């Protein structure tokens, strides 16, 4: 029924196509311009728009990437990002999972207080914590250290992690825990042999979410690692490149492409997990 009627009035659907195609173009063009420009020689970027390069095939080069990676510390920044993000993510997932299991699977005093505090803290602007944290970090000589930034990302990431995993764990049938307890399993055994295996999709969702999130962070890295060039992650390095204003678009765009590569690969390869994490984290509560 629907199909026949829709075909009969196909011209009334033109506005739909206009809106959808229009939005798609607005969203795709900036990305296309970035990628194309990153492969163009500097003289071409200076004299013509990236779209004109399609008329001049063969006009592409890898030179920009070589120049970016030769830059003082740029290649290192890529690995600094990994050294910041991977341990921070593992820490957040580990501590978050343990806490979420306690909050979802056990009854204890202060349980609701802890849970509600964590829900409230999810949206605290981290700006409000920066001044005192930086003071303490300077005192403990943690500024500019990887350990320091892992701890900061852990602290900032935990409320969301606990909240997200709590939602998942709360949906695991309680009979599963109770049966194991009947058999004399301790809480630790239940956690490792039942909760973690059952929750693997949830843990994956959180890990991807956290990975992309931490990789893309600028503010925390700027404040706790920013002054130290040899530990600066990709976001800081690229923003310094932009701020120095000494480079052409071909350098800035190829640096941006490099900074986007890793999170984009993770995101595209594991997008189903990512979407599940997003939905559990946002629309369930």
């Amino acid at each position: 029924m629907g199909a026949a009627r829709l075909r009969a009035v196909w011209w009334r659907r033109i506005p739909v196509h206009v809106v959808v195609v229009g939005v798609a173009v607005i969203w795709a063009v900036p990305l296309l311009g970035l990628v194309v420009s990153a492969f163009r020689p500097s003289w071409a970027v200076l004299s013509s728009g990236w779209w004109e390069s399609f008329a001049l095939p063969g006009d592409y080069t890898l030179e920009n990437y070589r120049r970016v990676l030769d830059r003082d510390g740029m290649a290192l920044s890529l690995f600094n990002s990994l050294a910041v993000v991977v341990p921070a993510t593992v820490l957040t997932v580990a501590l978050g999972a343990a806490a979420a299991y306690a909050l979802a699977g056990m009854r204890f005093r202060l349980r609701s207080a802890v849970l509600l505090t964590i829900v409230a803290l999810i949206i605290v602007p981290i700006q409000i914590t920066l001044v005192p944290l930086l003071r303490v970090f300077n005192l403990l000589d943690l500024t500019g250290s990887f350990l320091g930034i892992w701890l900061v990302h852990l602290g900032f990431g935990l409320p969301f992690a606990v909240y997200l995993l709590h939602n998942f764990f709360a949906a695991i049938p309680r009979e599963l825990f109770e049966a194991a307890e009947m058999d004399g399993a301790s809480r630790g055994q239940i956690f490792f042999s039942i909760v973690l295996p059952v929750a693997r999709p949830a843990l994956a969702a959180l890990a991807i979410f956290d990975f992309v999130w931490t990789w893309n962070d600028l503010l925390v890295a700027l404040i706790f690692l920013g002054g130290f060039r040899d530990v600066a992650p990709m976001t800081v390095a690229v923003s310094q490149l932009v701020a120095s204003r000494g480079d052409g678009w071909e350098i800035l765009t190829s640096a941006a492409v490099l900074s986007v590569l890793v999170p984009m690969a993770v995101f595209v390869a594991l997008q189903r997990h990512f979407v599940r994490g997003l939905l559990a984290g946002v629309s369930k509560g």
Partner: protein
Amino acid sequence: MIADRIVLTLAATAVIVVAGWAYLRLGDRALAALPRGAYRRLVPWLFAGPAVAMVLLALAFPAAVTVGWSFVDADGGFAGFANYVQTLSDEVTRIALRNTVLWVVLLPSLAVLVGLAIAVLAERVRYGALVKAALFLPIAISAVAAGVIWSFMYDYQPPGAAQTATLNAVVTALGGEPVAWIVDTATNNYALIGATLWTQAGFAMVIFDAALRSVPGELLEAARLDGASEWKAFRHVTLPFLVPTVVVVATTMTVTALKAFDIVYVMTNGNYGTDVLSTVMYRALFTAKDNGLAGAVATILMLTVVPIMVFNVRQFRRETGVA
């Protein structure tokens, strides 16, 4: 150095996993030696303790200290509301407040509009998956990279010169004068909000997309059989189902707008009247090195999210029954 980083990444990950496992296993076994009642009371803290401690140390205490410092003057004496008066009477803060309001009004409404429109309309065209992918990809892009991308889109060359940036090329092709989008105070705040929308609309779309699946198909069919147009069916059947989702998306985007920092920092560094509260605070902290002032700005920022925080907590209590 690169080899060092790889070793560090792997070693730290291994240590975290092994230490975490040993802590829970050994702690659990040690507590199990206690009487059953004590075990039950203590074991939740074995699991939740580290996370709770970290959240208190990294978030709750520093936040409280910041609020405290906002009432302290540069010499360490009690300042009352002097820091607030000073920052609020400063032209820079007032511009930042005005801009933050602009962000909070525009970003959530545009994200809801674009996200909902594409979630609904992509179902009705054969190339819908492609459109969704276009909105979806920028989610993974950092605000720093988005800043580069959009600075390049908005780039300006004087009239007469070759317009090598996309937007001004379009404007001049249509016969207009090139616009200095990022410098011109009539356009620059909208330009920054637009760049942020580009990274955020995908989130909104994904959430609406999932919510649309919960709309009962029979109701829509019934409405169509009764002769309702597609628009009327959407307006009277689908939309009421989506109201809670609109609220979720709007509050999430409001928080994103309030916290906006990266994109402003990269694209304008707060120049040309584009400051937001976060950039003002960053400068108070690092350029002026005034903790009291930075604390006051941060506290103002914090106060703006309190209503959303209260709303979220109430929502959570209603849904989970946590007292």
